[in-house]
């Protein structure tokens, strides 16, 4: 992206999750969202934790696995036009630091949510489904896979 004389890559989406301070920002944002939910008096602790997990999982699925391409013009002739943000990270290299981070956070949230919901069955079902929604698209076997042609173009 031509932004003057700075150090540039063709597609900034590939390196944004390696920028300094972005992991902390992400964790703080999630923590802040959780605190807001926790401060609602009509949510019990269990519900607010499960809700945090669900919101986190759904937002992650939408931003990382649904939206394709870039919102800005890149100088790589549209190479990532049909790739989701997850597939763009580190230009498709698997098991890099950013990817490991993204695979760990849903798991940590899941463990916390199931602990605070007292291992209740309904909460278990909801949390596990959301965890699968967060983890399965990140597997290297599903890189670039579009099931039933959904979201292909």
């Amino acid at each position, binding site marked *: 992206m031509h932004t003057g004389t700075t150090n540039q890559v063709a597609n900034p989406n590939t390196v944004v999750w390696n920028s300094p301070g972005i992991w902390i920002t992400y964790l703080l944002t999630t923590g802040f969202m959780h605190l807001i939910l926790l401060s609602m008096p009509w949510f019990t602790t269990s519900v607010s934790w499960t809700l945090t997990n669900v919101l986190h999982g759904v937002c992650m699925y939408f931003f990382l696995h649904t939206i394709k391409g870039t919102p800005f013009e890149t100088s790589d002739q549209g190479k990532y036009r049909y790739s989701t943000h997850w597939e763009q990270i580190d230009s*498709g290299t698997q098991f890099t630091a950013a990817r490991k981070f993204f695979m760990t956070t849903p798991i940590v949230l899941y463990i916390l949510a199931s602990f605070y919901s007292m*291992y209740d069955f309904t909460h278990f079902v909801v949390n596990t489904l959301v965890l699968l929604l967060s983890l399965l698209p990140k597997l290297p076997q599903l890189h670039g896979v579009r099931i039933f042609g959904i979201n292909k173009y």
Partner: protein
Amino acid sequence: MDVDKLWIVNEAIQSALQTPYHVIFEGLLVIWILRLIFSKPHKIPDKEEKLTAKEKKELVDLWKPEPLAPPVEKTLAETRPYRLVNGQVGKNIVINGHKCKNFASLNFLGLVGNKRVDDKIEKCIQNYGVGTCGPRTFYGTFDIHLELEKKLAEFMGAEEAVIYSYGFATVLSAIPAYAKKGDIIFADEAVSFAVQKGLQGSRSKVVYFKHNDMDDLEDKLKQQEKMDKKDPKKAAVVRKFMVVEGIYMNSGQICDLPKLVEFKYKYKVRLFVEESLSFGVLGKHGRGVTEHFNIPISKVDLVIACMENSLASGGGFTCGRHYVAGSQRLSAVGYVFSVSLPPLLAGAALEGLKISEENPEIFARLRQKASFFQNLLKGIKGIKLVGYPESPCFHLRRLHPVTPEKDLEFLHDVVDKCEKNGICITVATRTKAEVLSEWPASIRIAVSVQMSEKCLKEAAKVICHAVKEAFAEQRKS
């Protein structure tokens, strides 16, 4: 620790032990995290980037167990020595020490050495200096650039024009600014080298159709339509383009613009016309192939032209609708990353446009002289004339070609003989990297409006004589 908290933890552990499947699942997840920590980054091979047979062949051909560069003697033996030009190029040219009439430079309107243009250039140098030292987006936009863009848009009847600093790089940057990977471009197989590089740089799928063959193009468009019907979701996001030239550099033929506009609306394909040789040549006011066929310029999505031919300036321009031009200012490589056009060349182009507007009869005169000269040369035995009858730039080929090397030798022989007798013509150069490698060798002749009829008749005599001699020599050897 608080008694309440201890109680909650105890409660949690109790409920955990009651749901063993949950604990097992969490254990598996922790094992997965450990696996993550110890796995190394690796790339998965691209499964979509399948190489076509042509690309595989190119890669295989690239590998040669030879030194990095062929021995210098071999390269020198294959190239011909340059013909050195001294002084100004205009109606007359001093080439290799011979004073000749210039039928090689694409100086159609005779603007090289024009007094008005030279005065304007001097004023511009005194006002702006020589270079701009910056691309358009980084302190390289001068008022004269904006003036020239406005004047060009007004001249062509388009909404907006964009200027580039190098004629070759104009079409090279304009095509990849719109066509990206995954798009389809239908291009004439005889497009010039600059257009071919633009097509290559766009990374789109390029489908070449036979030179100026509208039926072949329609076949290919229909085939694409059939494929689109099978996968409508893909077709909705794939952009399709057609790239043609107004007058082709490689053959002097004119494109069939009415048919192309018909195809544009029938098959929903965007139309780009490269008008380097038809700008300042065709049409009542020299606006190019759109004026020639009486088609409103808004019907062509992008007109690309080079100011180095008729306008005798430098650089190039494109013109089209506002949103089309705006896209180029952001993503055309030659506009964003190259230094802008020197103001003196912009001034020369402005003066050239003013002169064209004041003398609109110059274009009809040019075309009349061109067809006159073509008629004189048509009668030469053993030579085939290729080109649109009114085009000032046309080609002479051997009527019965022998082998490519022998034909090239013959043509160079003709050129040398003409040079000795005071007429400068040139063999149309092609590089080895061109797409259509079996294009027949030819002499490219350019007629300038400055040439008088007497001059043209003499030149025709010289060329005829040179051809006869060259044939005689070939028969002897």
